[in-house]
């Protein structure tokens, strides 16, 4: 089964500072998703990466997928209180073989201090 490891487990950042979250897979990925979750709420889609070496940005958030499609990073520039929450990476397996389920990492809790 797909194993996804996220690091760090949690982090505290001063408002205005940058932060990076990593997601590592034990297997090659078909697609890598980044979601944000407020405590006890649903998942908000941030970005999906599919091609090796792909990089996408939205506002102050940038996500990258490495060439081997086994590692992704999420980078937030000049963090704001609105960036606080739990960030989750999810992945679809490389060879579907009728496997459609998203596997998730345990999440990274981000706290932004004013």
């Amino acid at each position: 089964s797909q194993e996804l490891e996220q690091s760090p487990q949690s982090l505290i950042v001063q408002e205005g500072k940058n932060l990076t979250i990593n997601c590592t897979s034990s297997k090659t990925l078909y697609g890598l998703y980044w979601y944000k979750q407020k405590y006890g709420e649903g998942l908000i889609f941030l970005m999906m990466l599919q091609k090796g070496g792909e990089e996408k940005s939205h506002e102050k958030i940038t996500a990258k997928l490495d060439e081997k499609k086994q590692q992704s990073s999420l980078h937030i520039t000049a963090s704001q209180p609105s960036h606080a929450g739990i960030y989750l990476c999810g992945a679809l397996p490389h060879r579907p073989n009728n496997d459609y389920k998203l596997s998730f990492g345990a999440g990274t809790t981000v706290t932004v201090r004013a």
Partner: protein
Amino acid sequence: DAGVTQSPTHLIKTRGQQVTLRCSPKSGHDTVSWYQQALGQGPQFIFQYYEEEERQRGNFPDRFSGHQFPNYSSELNVNALLLGDSALYLCASSPLDRGQAFFGPGTRLTVL
């Protein structure tokens, strides 16, 4: 577009009872998946429905069952509730081609 909707938002049950959770997918999506998220963990896949049939199932006991209706909406049923079933239950919808999955706000189930 209303996105993915789930009901109810919160639910309290006692051990041994049965519960039904409901999900309406995003417009244009025909595939619905259910996930269980325990506190402090990532979501765990329960099962996925497409064309009113269970297409894939995760590592959950038969107490967990589901249904998909012709309008693509779905239900998750859990029988003989255990304390360990307390969790946030998330519904996700997606198009058939394994595209982007959109999640609903979740149903918080508490089993006493």
